[in-house]
């Protein structure tokens, strides 16, 4: 169970990272280098910016996958807390 949770968490983490990079690639030319760097510092800003500009930059699939990865990683971490508490 722990291995499965670890695998799921890893996949969600890599998925989030890939989506972050894709959104950052759109963010840098659109908003400039400083706000792009701010997007690296504050992932929440990049996430919200992505959803705000979902139609303009055709990011619907990327943002949907990122949101799914976000939800999956939270579920995995909640389950991991449960598993470690049990054992």
């Amino acid at each position, binding site marked *: 169970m722990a291995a499965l949770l670890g695998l799921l968490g890893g996949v969600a*983490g890599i998925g*989030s990272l*890939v989506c972050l990079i894709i959104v950052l690639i759109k963010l840098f030319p659109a908003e400039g280098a400083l706000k792009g760097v701010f997007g690296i510092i504050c992932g929440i800003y990049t996430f919200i910016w992505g959803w705000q500009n979902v139609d303009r930059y055709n990011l619907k699939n990327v943002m949907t996958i990122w949101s799914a990865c976000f939800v999956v990683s939270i579920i995995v971490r909640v389950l991991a807390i449960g598993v470690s508490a049990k054992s």
Partner: protein
Amino acid sequence: MKTVGLFTPVLAPLLSNRTLCRAITGFSVVHLAIVSLGLPSWPCPIRHGLGLPCPGCGLTRAIKALGAGEWQQAMVIHAFAPLAVIVLILMGYISIAPTQHWRWILQRCRLAEQKTGLSALMVVLFIMYWLIRLLFFREALYHWVL
């Protein structure tokens, strides 16, 4: 690509978008509340994807420590926590401020940034702080952040 210099405003364009301010403030407050309860919240994509802390990693814990009055602890975890709190409070106020007041703050903020380049300087310092910790104080960084 937009051309940027040290005196290009960073904060003012963020504050000009009130919907963005509301979303960031709301998300951050919920995130802080969930983390304070000891529950998992926003996972940093860089940390979870690469196993490497991003420049902002540790800010939540540092802000939590600030909230508990543990200043020293907060500064050890992330020295930029007080700045993050100030920006968050400013964004929170912008979200609910009357339009006239919002425009006044926006104008002042833009002028201050264009004259001093403070925000851009802070972004550069933030990245340098992260690089120094990552290269020279890796163990301490991993201890506090990961």
